[in-house]
C-alpha cells in the first residue's frame, strides 16, 4: 500500500515538473511579451503580418496578437489583460478613454466600409450617396440584410448607420445576425443573396469567390478609422507599459506609415489602408 | 436444532494421523483458532478450532451460505477483517510471519477459472512471474504442469478460446505450478458439465496423491467429497457441525442436519422403551425398532437409517433371519435417483430404500404394492439428543 502511494506521489511530481518546465521555457523563450488586442479584420487584412516582424526585430519584443472583436478587445483592456489596443470603433474608444482605461489614443490609418449586395439589387440602392438612405430602403423593402452582430468595429458602424436612419432592425425577419467574422459574414450574404456592410479590405480579398457588388460607397460615415490606444497602467500595474508605448510609437512612425501607404497595391491594385498619423480625426474624408 | 459444542482430543488425533500418514511431524501444518466473521450483525463464520495435517485432503461440505467460501478466504487472508488466529507450521501468521509471506505459500482455485487474457502457457506461468522466477526454471515447471493436466497441446492457445474443462485445468495447473504448501479449492468443479467434471476429479485425485499436497476443498457435492478426501467437515450457518473421515460422517452423523445433508434418507424420532444390554428398543410411531447404543430408558433418540442399508423383499411371510427389524409396508412412491430408484415406503413410519433397476424389475415393485423391508440393528445410527460429540 505504501509503495502504491509512493509511486503516485512520484508520478504527480513528474507531471507537475513537466508542466512547470514547459511553462518556464515558454516564458523564458520570449524576452518580453506585449499583448496586442486588435480586431479580426485588422488581422485578416494581413497588415500585421508585415509590420510585426519588423517591430519585433527592431525592439526584441514578442507581440502576442489576440484578434477578437473591438468590443472584446476593449473589454480586455478594461481588465488589464492587454497592453495595447489597435481598434476601429471610435465611439466606444472615446468612452474607454473617458473612463480612464486607456491613454494616448493616436490615429493610425483609415479605410472605408462599403455596402455590398447581389448585382440585381432588389432594393435599388446602387449609387446612393447616403448610407442611411440605403438602409432605409432596405428596411422598407424588407430585403435580407446580414449583420455581423458581434460588437466588432464593423457591427458598431452598422448600428450607427441604422441609428442615423432612425430604424431599429432588431427582431425583424429580414435582419439576420451571424456573430461571425467579416469573411464568413460576406460568404453568408453571398449564399443567401442578402445585403451587408463590409470593410473594403476584406471584400477585396474575397471578391473573386463572392457574387457581390459594391453598391454604396464614399459616404463620410462609412469611414473606418483606426486608433492605437495604450492601456492605462494606473488601473492595472501588471500592464507592460514600456512595451505598449513602444508598439504605439512604432505604429505612428514614418517608416510604418509608409509601409501602410503601399500595403495591398500589388495584390489588389489599390491600397487597403490610408495612413493618417498626426492628422486630426475631423480632417479625414474631406 | 440446539447448538452443539464439541471438543478435540488433540493428542490422540495427532498420533493417529501421524501413524496414518507415516510421518513424524511435530504438529499440524495449519491451525485456525476462534475464527469469527460478522457482517452487519449476521455471523458468517464461527469456528473455535480447526487443524489440518500435512498431506491431508480435507473436504468442506455444506449448503450454500454455510460459510465454506468465507472460511477459505479467511484462511488465505483474502477476506478482511476477521477475528481469530491462524498458525502456519506452529507460527502465528501476522506476528512471527508476515501475511504476505504466508499467502505465498498457499494457492487458491475458484469456481470460475479466472484466467488472464493471454496464452495458456502464460497463464500457468503467471504465479511464477509474480514471484520473479527465472525464465528457464519457470518454463520447466510450466511444461511439467501442462503435461500433468493433459493440456500441453493447448499451450499457445488464447485463454479466451478454451472450453470450461480446459480452462479449469489451466487454473489448476497455474496453482500447482506454485508448488503450494496448502492448496485451497472453492467449489472448483461446480461450473463444469458432468463428463468434464468426472475427468477432472479423477486427474486431481491422482495429482494430489502424487504430490502429497495438503488440500482444502469446498464443495456441495457429497460424492466428490467422499471420493477425494481423507476427512470431511460438514458446515452450516458458519459453524463446523462434524468433522471426521468420510465413512464416519456418512454413517454416523452427529445430528439431523448432518444426517440429511450426507444423504441419510430415513430419520426417525423415537423414545427408548426397553433396554437389553448393548441394544435397545425404540418406539417409533407405535412400532418398535431395535438399535444398538448406550441409552437410558425413556430417553428421546433419533434413528438414522441409510437407504442403502434397507433391504426389500417381495415375500410377505416372516422368514427366520438374523435381521431383527422386519416391517411390512406399502410403496408410496418410486423416484428415479441417479443410478438407483428411491423407494419411499410407509411402514407406520416413513422408510426410504434404494434399489437398482434390476431389483425393481425382479421384485416387480410398483407404487401401491405391499413389500417387506428389513434392516440390521447395527446399521442404524443413533443420535442422542443433548449428546456432546467426543472422538476424532
Amino acid at each position, binding site marked *: 500500500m505504501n509503495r502504491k502511494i509512493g509511486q503516485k506521489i512520484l508520478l504527480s511530481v513528474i507531471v507537475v515538473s513537466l508542466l512547470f518546465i514547459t*511553462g518556464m521555457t515558454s516564458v523564458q523563450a520570449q524576452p518580453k511579451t506585449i499583448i496586442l488586442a486588435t480586431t479580426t479584420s485588422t488581422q485578416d487584412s494581413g497588415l500585421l503580418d508585415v509590420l510585426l516582424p519588423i517591430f519585433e526585430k527592431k525592439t526584441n519584443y514578442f507581440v502576442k496578437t489576440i484578434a477578437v472583436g473591438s468590443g472584446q478587445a476593449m473589454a480586455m483592456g478594461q481588465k488589464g489583460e492587454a497592453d495595447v489596443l489597435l481598434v476601429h470603433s471610435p465611439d466606444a474608444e472615446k468612452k474607454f478613454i473617458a473612463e480612464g482605461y486607456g491613454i494616448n489614443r493616436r490615429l493610425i490609418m483609415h479605410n472605408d466600409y462599403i455596402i455590398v449586395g447581389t448585382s440585381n439589387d432588389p432594393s435599388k440602392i446602387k449609387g446612393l450617396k447616403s448610407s442611411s438612405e440605403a438602409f432605409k430602403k432596405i428596411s422598407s423593402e424588407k430585403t435580407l440584410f446580414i449583420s455581423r452582430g458581434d460588437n466588432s468595429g464593423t457591427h458598431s458602424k452598422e448600428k450607427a448607420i441604422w441609428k442615423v436612419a432612425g430604424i431599429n432592425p432588431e427582431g425583424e425577419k429580414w435582419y439576420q445576425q451571424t456573430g461571425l467574422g467579416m469573411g464568413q459574414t460576406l460568404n453568408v450574404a453571398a449564399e443567401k443573396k442578402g445585403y451587408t456592410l463590409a470593410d473594403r479590405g476584406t471584400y477585396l480579398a474575397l471578391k473573386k469567390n463572392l457574387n457581390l457588388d459594391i453598391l454604396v460607397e464614399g459616404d463620410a460615415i462609412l469611414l473606418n478609422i483606426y486608433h492605437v490606444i495604450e492601456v492605462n497602467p494606473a488601473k492595472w500595474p501588471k500592464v507592460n507599459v514600456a512595451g505598449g508605448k513602444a508598439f504605439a510609437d512604432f505604429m505612428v512612425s514614418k517608416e510604418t506609415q509608409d509601409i501602410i501607404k503601399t500595403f495591398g497595391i500589388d495584390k489588389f491594385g489599390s491600397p487597403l489602408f490610408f495612413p493618417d498619423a498626426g492628422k486630426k480625426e475631423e480632417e479625414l474624408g474631406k | 436444532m440446539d447448538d452443539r459444542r464439541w471438543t478435540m482430543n488433540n493428542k490422540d488425533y495427532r498420533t493417529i494421523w501421524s501413524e496414518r500418514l507415516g510421518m513424524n511431524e511435530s504438529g499440524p501444518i495449519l491451525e485456525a483458532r476462534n475464527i469469527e466473521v460478522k457482517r452487519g450483525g449476521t455471523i458468517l463464520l464461527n469456528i473455535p478450532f480447526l487443524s489440518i495435517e500435512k498431506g491431508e485432503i480435507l473436504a468442506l461440505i455444506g449448503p450454500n451460505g454455510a460459510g465454506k467460501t468465507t472460511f477459505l478466504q479467511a484462511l488465505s487472508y483474502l477476506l478482511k477483517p476477521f477475528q481469530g488466529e491462524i498458525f502456519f507450521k506452529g507460527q502465528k501468521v501476522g506476528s512471527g510471519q508476515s501475511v504476505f509471506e504466508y499467502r505465498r505459500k498457499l494457492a487458491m482455485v475458484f469456481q470460475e477459472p479466472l484466467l488472464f487474457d493471454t496464452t495458456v502457457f502464460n497463464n500457468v506461468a503467471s504465479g511464477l512471474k509474480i514471484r520473479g522466477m527465472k525464465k528457464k526454471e519457470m518454463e520447466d515447471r510450466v511444461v511439467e504442469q501442462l503435461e500433468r493436466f493433459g493440456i500441453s497441446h493447448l499451450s499457445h492457445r488464447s485463454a479466451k478460446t478454451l472450453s470450461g474443462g480446459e480452462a479449469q485445468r489451466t487454473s489448476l495447473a497455474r496453482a500447482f505450478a506454485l508448488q503450494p504448501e496448502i492448496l485451497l479449492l472453492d467449489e472448483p468443479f461446480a461450473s463444469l458439465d458432468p463428463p468434464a467434471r468426472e475427468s477432472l476429479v479423477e486427474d486431481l485425485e491422482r495429482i494430489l496423491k502424487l504430490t502429497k499436497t495438503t488440500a482444502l476443498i469446498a464443495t456441495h457435492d457429497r460424492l466428490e467429497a467422499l471420493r477425494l478426501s481423507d476427512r470431511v467437515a460438514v458446515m452450516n450457518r458458519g459453524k463446523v457441525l462434524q468433522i471426521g473421515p468420510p465413512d464416519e460422517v456418512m454413517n454416523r452423523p452427529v445430528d439431523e442436519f448432518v444426517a440429511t445433508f450426507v444423504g441419510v434418507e430415513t430419520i426417525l424420532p423415537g423414545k427408548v422403551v426397553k433396554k437389553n444390554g448393548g441394544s435397545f428398543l425404540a418406539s417409533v410411531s407405535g412400532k418398535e425398532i431395535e438399535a444398538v447404543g448406550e441409552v437410558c430408558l425413556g430417553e428421546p433418540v433419533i434413528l438414522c437409517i441409510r437407504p442403502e442399508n434397507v433391504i426389500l423383499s417381495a415375500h410377505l411371510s416372516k422368514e427366520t433371519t438374523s435381521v431383527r427389524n422386519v416391517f411390512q409396508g406399502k410403496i408410496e412412491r418410486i423416484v428415479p435417483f441417479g443410478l438407483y430408484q428411491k423407494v419411499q415406503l410407509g411402514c407406520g413410519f416413513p422408510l426410504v430404500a434404494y434399489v437398482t433397476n434390476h431389483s425393481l424389475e425382479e421384485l416387480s415393485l410398483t407404487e401401491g404394492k405391499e413389500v417387506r423391508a428389513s434392516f440390521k440393528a447395527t446399521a442404524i445410527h443413533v443420535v442422542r439428543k443433548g449428546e456432546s460429540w467426543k472422538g476424532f
Partner: protein
Amino acid sequence: MDLIFEGIKKAFWLIITFDPEVMGITFLSLQVSGIATLISLFIGISTGVTVALSRFIGKRIVVSLINTGMGLPPVVVGLFVTIFLWRNGPLGFFEILYTPTAMIIAQTVIATPIVMGITLAAIQQLPQKLRLQILALGATRLQMVWILIKEARLPLLAAVMAGFGGVISEVGASIMVGGNIKGYSRVLTTATVMETSRGNFEIAIALGIILLVLAFSINFIITQIQQRERPR
C-alpha cells in the same frame, strides 16, 4: 464541390512542398495534443484504477462526477482556464496565458476525465473475483494493480484514442487560452477556424484534410495495436 477538390489539391501541395507554416502548425498540434494526452493518461489511469478498486463513502458521487466530466464542454473548460490564467487571475503570475503551455493545460483538463471514466469502467468490468485470484497467486497490491491494467488493456487503448481524439480536434478552448498566435500557438484546428472566417475556404479545407489524415493515422496505429491483441 470543386471547392473540396481545390481543397484536396491545396492540401496535397502544402504537404508535398513541406510548406513551413503548415508544417509548423501540424507539428505544434501534435506536440500540444500529444503531451496533453500523455499527462491525462498518467492522471486518468492512476485515478481511475484507484477509484475502481477502492471502497469509500461517497464513491457513487465521485463516479458520477467523473462520468459528467467526460462530457464536459471544451469551451467551458477553456473559459475557466482562461479566467485562472489571466494576468490578474489566481495563477496569473505564471504568465502562461496565450502560450502552448496553456493549451496543454486546457486540453489535459478536457482529456483527463475521459481517460478516467473509461479506465474506471474498464476495471469495474473485470470479474470481481479476479482481484482475489491475483492476490491468491501471491501478488503484492502493486502487482495486482498492474496485472489488472494489463487485463483491461483493450479498453484502455480505447481510452487513449478517445482522449487524443478529443483534444486534437478541440478548437474552442484552444483559441481562448492559446490566442491563435501565428507561429506560436496556432494549431490545425484554430488555423482552420481563422481561415474559414477570413473566407479562405481552400486553405481551410486543406488544413481540415491534414487534420483528418493526422487523426486517422494515429488512431489507425493504435487500433492496429489493439486489434492485434484480440484473441485469435
